[in-house]
């Protein structure tokens, strides 16, 4: 999609989500602590691949309608799991290399990662029950 460089310079903050620019959450609600926006490849390595806890990775795009529905829905359910699982958000236009590495074709694509491996995945929007089952399986397995 088109970008206007002037506006990009003004809005120099890399993230678009509810979190501040360093991805360190400082809200008090549990959701904020468990969800973060991936900053770059090494951030992904540190906080997703090397994470001691399982992580769901939400690959999304600004131009994707269903992503805007799935994102908050997934975040809410991740928060419900009380810290047993974390959620990483990756904007595929900002982090195309990462998206390509994990073979993302369509968005939203959500990967379940445990100990650096992709153990589960789905593409497209899911309802709350389906998401909850997905998360429980990741935590339990």
């Amino acid at each position, binding site marked *: *999609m*088109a*970008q*206007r*460089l*002037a*506006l990009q310079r003004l809005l120099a903050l890399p993230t678009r989500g509810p979190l501040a620019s360093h991805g360190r959450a400082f809200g008090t609600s549990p959701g904020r602590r468990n969800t973060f926006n991936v900053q770059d490849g090494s951030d992904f390595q540190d906080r997703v691949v090397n994470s001691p806890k399982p992580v769901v990775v939400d690959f999304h*795009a*600004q*131009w*994707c*309608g269903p992503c805007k529905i799935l994102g908050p829905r997934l975040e809410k359910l991740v928060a419900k799991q009380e810290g047993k699982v974390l959620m990483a958000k990756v904007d*595929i*236009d900002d982090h*195309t290399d990462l998206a*390509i590495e994990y073979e993302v*074709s369509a*968005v939203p694509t959500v990967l379940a990662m445990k100990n650096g491996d992709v153990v589960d995945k789905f593409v497209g929007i899911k309802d709350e029950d389906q998401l909850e089952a997905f998360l429980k399986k990741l935590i339990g397995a």
Partner: protein
Amino acid sequence: SVQAHKEEENPQKTMEVNGFMPVPDSYDYDLIVIGGGSGGLAAAKEAAKYEKKVMVLDFVMPTPQGSSWGLGGTCVNVGCIPKKLMHQAALLGQALQDSRKFGWQFTEEVKHNWMTMTESVQNYIGSLNWGYRVALRDKKVTYENAYGEFVGPHTIKATNKKGVEKLYTAETFIIATGERPRYLGIPGDKEYCISSDDLFSLPYCPGRTLVVGASYVALECAGFLAGLGLDVTVMVRSILLRGFDQDMANRIGEYMKEHGVSFIREFVPIKVERVEEGNPGILKVSAKSTRGDQIIEVEYNTVLLAIGRDPCTRKIGLDKVGVNINERTGKIPVNDEEQTNVPYIYAVGDILQDKLELTPVAIQAGRLLVQRLYAGTTTKCDYVNVPTTVFTPLEYGACGYPEETAVEKFGEENIEVYHSNFWPLEWTVPSRDNNKCYAKIICNTQDNERVIGFHVLGPNAGEVTQGFAAAIKCGLTKEQLDSTVGIHPVCAEV
């Protein structure tokens, strides 16, 4: 001049001496395509089918206003796709008005929100950009978002937006760098005016707009902007739609005038100044008559320049590899196999001299070229009888010769023109114009009354024209046309 002569005799030696690259004996890639637009991507994807190692370089230099976009080229990002979507938005506005007469009742006045439309259009384009990335990856084509330029034989330098440079070599190259809008070269043009490159992602409604130019880009943009309810004026230097059938062009102009677009004819802008800041602000345009000394000054929120497009061929190092370009226009002359004067360098798309500037043509040319290179075919791209459509408020579809060209080529006595006004059934109830839609065919009486020109002005002209283009390619004659039973009630039956 002695020095130049010596270089010509032994360019390789000279280049080595001057620190240039010698010809490599093995290459990084079989094919490098410079430009990821309609032609470039089609060629790259086709080459990958034959298991060739292919790279595509695509890079968008931002406009003076700062606009930029993703992979896919002009058509996808700032051309056909957003244009047609916005044209559709305008048509829907008209349809809403018509709908009352068909019984739909709604009390509110209908208004248009520019931001909603633009966001939807840009979201769709974003999905296309991503789709192209995925397609290239799936076909194992290497893609670099970098500016490519030749630095020596078989060698290009790719510079990404961070300024990092890399060198790549290939056995064959295809140049598909396309064009960008031309500016006027008057004070204030780059600072204050926008072009079609900016329009489709403009983050604010353009408001009262002056469109400079009378190309199809100018008329299509003016058309949909007016259709969305904006106050639009078109400033024309001489004629409308140069190169197209002039009778049809004038009908299009008349229709637009009767439907809210103002025209200022035979004037050119000489200065643009900003009177008030803002998005949009207010700009003052000074224009001079082409016929005398009269100068006028008019104020607009936005000035859209659509006076032509120039090929991106002057800053890609073509001189370093000896590719000839037309110095005046920047276009690249090629033979009928899209080959430049340098045997391993080819070109496709809008940058070609004397060829049509259309996406499907570039795609076809790119694909056939690659098939000739790697699949041993001999089929060349057929540039004759290519159909086209102008998406002005009253759409115009054409295939074959304009009337003037047919007369010039075959002689007036050998041409027969059959024509008719028609009134689309859908326009009757809402009492829309009954004498504006028009169709004509031009036949060559010396060749069995073969149809050599097809022109239609009316709704869905593009859809109508496509079928007739296929018939014309098969050698359609007037008799065959007459004996084809029409579908009723559709416009195409005329």
